[in-house]
C-alpha cells in the first residue's frame, strides 16, 4: 500500500477547524472589533501578560496557532488548486502552504517562550 | 471463440454468467447487453421473490400455489425443480450480499403475496429487483473471466445445420457490426411488454430474444398468456407493487366498496388473508376490474377508468418501513401521498408468461441455444404467473442454463467459422443498407409502433374474441409491410438510437404476431387468456401449450404440446374459500 500523509494532514485540518470555530470569532470580536472601536476598554498590559503567564496557557496557545494555521494551509492548498485548476502543482503548493504554517508556529514559539 | 455467450445482462443473464464462471473458470463467458447490465429491467422489480423457508411451509404447497395459480398449464416437473431450487438461490444471493429485509432476530423476513397460501416472499423493502440486480452485477465484477459487451445490440443468431455458432451484434456507440463466434448462446433478453401501449415494462423490453429465436427457427410457447397487473398508475403505467396489498392495502371502487368480494375471491377482512380478496391472483383481479368498469363502478380520468388502492389505514410508519418506494413513486409521479390519499390504479400489461420454448435446463430445440428468464418459457408460470415467482425463476433457470451451456461448450468442439463469417457479412450489409438508403419519407417508426400497440390492446387485451383477433392478424401483416419502408432520419454510425428503434420494432412485430396467432388458436378461457366467445376452460382440448413456429412463408404456425403433469391433476381454482 502506498503511504500517504493525507490522513495526518486531515486530522490536523479537522482539529484546526473545530478550534478555529470555537475560539476565533469571539477573539476577533473582542480584540479586533469591540476594543479598537472603543466599545470595550483594552485590559491593562499587566493583566494580559498575567493571562499568558502559566505554562499551560502558553502551550495551549501554541497548539491553537498550530492547528488553525494547518487548517488554513490545508484549505488554501486545495481551494487554490480547484479554483485555479493547478492540481498538478500540488507538491509545490503543499510545501508553500504547510511551510508557511510551520513558520507561523515557529514565530509563536519564539514569542511565547 | 467464446464458450458461453449470454445475450442479456438482467437477472437471468448475470446469474447464468456466474454459474458458468463457477462451473469451470477455464471457459470464456461473455455477457452482451444492449444497456449496461445494471440498467436491465430486473432493476424495476419491487415486491419480492418467493421461496420456501418458513417453518410450516412446504415445497409442495409452493408448487400447488404455482400450479393452481397458472390454471394447470404449468409443467409440473419444471415447477417441482423450481420450488426445490428457489430457496438455495435466494440464500446464495444473501451470501453475495443482497440486503434482504430482516426479522428482529436477524433471519430473512418474508411477506405474503398474491395467490400464495403461505408467507414465503423474500423482500428487500420494495426494491427487491433493484437490490437483486445490483448484488448480482457487483458480484460478477469479482470474476475477471466474465467479458462484457456493454451497449451492444444483438441483431441475429448465427445458426447453421441446426446448431448455434454465435451472434451478430452492433456496438451501439460506434455502429460497428460484428459477428461474435460462440459455442453456445443463452438468450436472457427479458420480456416484451412494449408491444402493448400501456405497460409497466421499460423501454428496452421489446421481445428481442423471442424474435431472435423465432427467426432462427426455434418455437415460442404460450405466447397468448400476457399478464395484466391490476395496479398500475394511470398515464405512466408505473407499477404499484402487489406488496402494497400484501401489507394490507385495499382495492376499492368509486363507491369506496371493496369490490373483489363480488368476484368469488372471498370476504373482506381487516388484516390481509392469504389467497383471498386483494391477495388473489393477478388474472382474476384484472378481470374483476373490467367487470367493475362494465358496471359503471370505476372512476373516469383523462387516462382511462381507474379504481383506487387505499393504503391510508396502514399509516405512515408502516408505509415508510415496508413500501417506501411506493410512497416515493406516488409522490414524484402522481403528486399524491398514499399515507393520506387514495392511489388511482388500473390494470397494466406487466409480464409475459410465454417465451422461447425450453426444457428444464433452458435448452431450446436448436443445439447449443439456451434461453432463461422472462424471455424463456420453461413453463412454470402456465396461464398466469404468481407475483414474486419471476425473480426466483430468473435465478434458478439462469443458473441451470449457465451450467448446461457450460457442459455443452466443454463437450462440443466449435464451430463453423465460415458460417459465422458469411452470416456476419450478410447482416452487416443489410444494416448498412438501412442506414445508407436513408429514406426521409415513409411512415414514422413511432407511428407504426403505436398502431401495433393499439392493435394488440384492442384484440389481445384482458378479454379477447375471435373476430378482432382475426382482424389483428391482417393489421399486423400490413404493419410489417409498411415497416420495411419506415422512415429513418439518422444515418450516423455513432449511437444511432433510431436504427435500434427500428430493429426493435421488427422484433416486436414478430412477437405481436405470435401473441395474436396463439390467442386466436386457443378457443378456451384459461388464466390470463379469456375468450368471450369461449368462456370455459377446456381441458379436453387445451390442457396443452401453444407452440408457435415461423412458417417458411414468414407467418406464425401454431401447434399444441401436452402439459406435463406429475402429482396435481387439474382442478378448480379456489380463492377466498377455505
Amino acid at each position, binding site marked *: *500500500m*502506498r503511504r500517504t500523509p*493525507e*490522513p*495526518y494532514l*486531515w486530522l490536523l485540518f479537522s482539529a484546526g477547524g473545530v478550534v478555529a470555530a470555537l475560539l476565533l470569532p469571539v477573539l476577533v470580536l473582542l480584540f479586533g472589533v469591540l476594543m479598537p472601536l472603543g466599545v470595550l476598554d483594552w485590559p491593562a498590559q499587566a493583566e494580559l501578560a498575567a493571562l499568558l503567564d502559566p505554562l499551560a496557557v502558553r502551550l495551549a496557545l501554541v497548539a491553537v496557532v498550530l492547528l488553525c494555521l494547518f487548517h488554513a494551509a490545508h484549505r488554501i492548498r*486545495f*481551494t487554490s488548486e*480547484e479554483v485555479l485548476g493547478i*492540481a498538478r502543482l500540488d507538491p509545490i503548493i503543499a510545501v508553500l502552504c504547510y511551510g508557511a504554517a510551520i513558520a507561523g508556529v515557529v514565530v509563536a514559539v519564539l514569542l511565547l517562550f | 471463440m467464446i464458450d458461453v455467450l449470454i445475450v442479456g445482462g438482467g437477472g437471468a443473464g448475470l446469474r447464468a454468467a456466474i454459474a458458468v464462471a463457477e462451473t469451470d473458470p477455464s471457459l470464456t463467458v461473455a455477457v452482451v447487453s444492449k444497456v*449496461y447490465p*445494471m*440498467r*436491465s*429491467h430486473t*432493476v*424495476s422489480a419491487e415486491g419480492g421473490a418467493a421461496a420456501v423457508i418458513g417453518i410450516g411451509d412446504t415445497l409442495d404447497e409452493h408448487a400447488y400455489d404455482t400450479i393452481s395459480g397458472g390454471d394447470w398449464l404449468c409443467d409440473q416437473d419444471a415447477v417441482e425443480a423450481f420450488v426445490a431450487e428457489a430457496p*438455495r438461490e435466494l*440464500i446464495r444471493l444473501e*451470501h453475495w*450480499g443482497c*440486503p434482504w*429485509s*430482516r*426479522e428482529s*432476530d*436477524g433471519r*430473512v423476513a418474508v411477506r405474503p403475496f398474491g395467490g400464495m397460501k403461505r408467507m414465503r416472499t423474500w423482500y428487500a423493502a420494495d*426494491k427487491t429487483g433493484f437490490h437483486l440486480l445490483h448484488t448480482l452485477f*457487483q*458480484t460478477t*465484477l469479482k470474476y475477471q473471466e466474465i467479458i462484457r459487451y*456493454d451497449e451492444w445490440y444483438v441483431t441475429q443468431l448465427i445458426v447453421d445445420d441446426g446448431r448455434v455458432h454465435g451472434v451478430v451484434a452492433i456496438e451501439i*456507440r460506434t455502429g460497428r457490426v460484428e459477428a461474435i463466434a460462440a459455442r453456445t448462446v443463452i438468450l436472457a433478453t427479458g420480456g416484451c411488454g412494449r408491444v402493448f*401501449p*400501456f405497460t409497466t415494462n*421499460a*423501454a*428496452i423490453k421489446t421481445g428481442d430474444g423471442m424474435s431472435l429465436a423465432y427467426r432462427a427457427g426455434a418455437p415460442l410457447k404460450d405466447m397468448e398468456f400476457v399478464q395484466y397487473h391490476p395496479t398500475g398508475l394511470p*398515464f*405512466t*403505467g*408505473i407499477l404499484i407493487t402487489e406488496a402494497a396489498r400484501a401489507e394490507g392495502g385495499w382495492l376499492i371502487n368509486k363507491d369506496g366498496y371493496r369490490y373483489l368480494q363480488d368476484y368469488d375471491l372471498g370476504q373482506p377482512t381487516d388484516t390481509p388473508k392469504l389467497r383471498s380478496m386483494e391477495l388473489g391472483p393477478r388474472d382474476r383481479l384484472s378481470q374483476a376490474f373490467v367487470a367493475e368498469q362494465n358496471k359503471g363502478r370505476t372512476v373516469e380520468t*383523462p*387516462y*382511462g377508468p381507474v379504481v383506487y388502492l387505499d393504503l391510508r389505514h396502514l399509516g405512515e410508519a408502516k408505509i415508510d418501513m415496508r413500501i417506501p418506494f411506493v410512497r*416515493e413513486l406516488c409522490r414524484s*409521479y402522481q403528486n399524491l401521498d398514499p399515507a393520506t390519499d387514495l392511489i388511482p390504479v388500473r390494470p397494466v400489461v406487466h409480464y409475459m408468461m410465454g417465451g422461447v420454448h425450453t426444457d428444464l435446463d433452458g435448452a431450446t430445440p436448436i443445439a447449443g441455444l439456451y434461453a432463461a428468464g422472462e424471455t424463456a418459457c420453461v413453463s412454470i408460470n402456465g396461464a398466469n404467473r404468481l407475483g414474486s415467482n419471476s425473480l426466483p425463476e430468473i435465478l434458478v433457470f439462469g443458473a441451470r442454463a449457465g451450467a448446461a451451456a457450460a457442459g455443452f461448450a466443454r463437450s462440443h468442439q466449435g464451430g463453423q467459422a465460415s458460417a459465422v463469417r458469411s452470416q456476419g457479412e450478410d447482416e452487416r450489409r443489410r444494416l448498412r443498407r438501412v442506414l445508407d438508403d436513408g429514406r426521409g419519407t415513409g411512415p*414514422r*417508426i*413511432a407511428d407504426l409502433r403505436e398502431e401495433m400497440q*393499439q392493435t394488440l*390492446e384492442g384484440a389481445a387485451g384482458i378479454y379477447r374474441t375471435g373476430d378482432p383477433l382475426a382482424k389483428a392478424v391482417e393489421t399486423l401483416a400490413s404493419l410489417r409491410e409498411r415497416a420495411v419502408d419506415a422512415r429513418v*432520419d*439518422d444515418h*450516423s*454510425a*455513432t*449511437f444511432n438510437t*433510431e436504427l435500434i428503434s427500428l430493429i426493435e420494432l421488427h422484433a416486436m412485430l414478430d412477437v405481436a404476431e405470435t401473441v395474436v396467432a396463439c390467442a386466436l388458436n386457443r378457443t378456451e378461457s384459461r388464466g390470463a387468456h379469456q375468450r368471450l366467445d369461449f368462456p370455459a376452460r377446456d381441458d379436453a382440448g387445451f390442457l396443452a401449450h401453444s407452440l408457435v413456429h415461423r412458417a417458411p412463408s414468414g407467418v406464425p404456425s401454431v401447434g399444441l404440446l401436452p402439459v406435463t403433469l406429475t402429482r396435481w391433476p387439474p382442478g378448480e381454482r379456489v380463492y377466498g374459500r377455505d
Partner: protein
Amino acid sequence: MSTKESERAARRKAAADGHGTETIRLEISRYRPEQDTEPVFESFDVPMSEDWAILDGLNYVKDQLDGTLSFRWSCRMGVCGSCGMNVNGKPRLTCGTFLSEFGRGPVRIEPLKGFPVIRDLVVEIDDFLAKLSHVRPWLIREGEELPLTAEYAQTPEQLEAYKQYSMCINCLLCYSACPVYVLNPDFLGPAAIALAQRYNLDSRDQGDRLDLLNSDEGVWGCTFVGECTSVCPKHVDPAEAIQRYKVTAAMRSVLPWSRR
C-alpha cells in the same frame, strides 16, 4: 379508450377550448461527431402537459420532430439510472423532472457535465464502471462459506447501518455535480466510494478497502463540496459516506491496530 388515445383526446379538447395549445421550448444540446466539432443548441417546441416529464418531451421530439436525437432512457420510474442529464444547469433524472417545474420555459437540456460526450445527450461512463470494479463492490468473506441452507444473520439495525449506501442507482449525477471529479477524473468519486462504504459497513463483510480508499485519488481527493449529496435522487448521501471514511482512514493511520 387507451391511454395514448385519451391523452391525445384530452389534448385536442384542451386545444379546442383555446387554452391548451401551450407549448414549451426545449433547448437541446446536439453533438454529432460526424458533423459537429463541438455541441450546438437546437430548439424544439413540445406540447406542455402537466403530467409530462422532461423525458416525455424528449421522446416527443424523437418520435415526432427529429428522429436523430439520441439519449438514453429505460425504466422511466427513477430506478434504472440511465436518463441523467443536465437540466437548466443542474444534473437531474429526466424521467423524474417535470416540465411544469419550468414555468413557460425554455428548458435547457445538456449531457451530464464531466464526461466525454459520445453523441447529443449520451455520455461515456466507462470510467465509472472501471472505478466501480476497482473498489471491490462485493461481499468479501474470509474462511469457510456457510452452506446454502442458512443465511448469515443480520439484524434490522445492522441492515440499517449500510442500507442508505446500497440505494445507489449509478446514475452519476453526483459525479457530474462534483467539481473535484470534473477537474480531475482520477478522483474515485462519490458513488464508488459510497458503494465501497456500503460493503465496509455490511456486518457480513470481512474485507478491507483501506488500500483503495486511503489515497489521494480516494477519499482524500474529496474537499467536501457536498453537491454530490444535494443532487443525488436516491438520498444516498455520498458526501457523508466519504467524510465518514475519512475518519476511519485517519483513525486507522494513527492507530494501525484498530479494526474498521
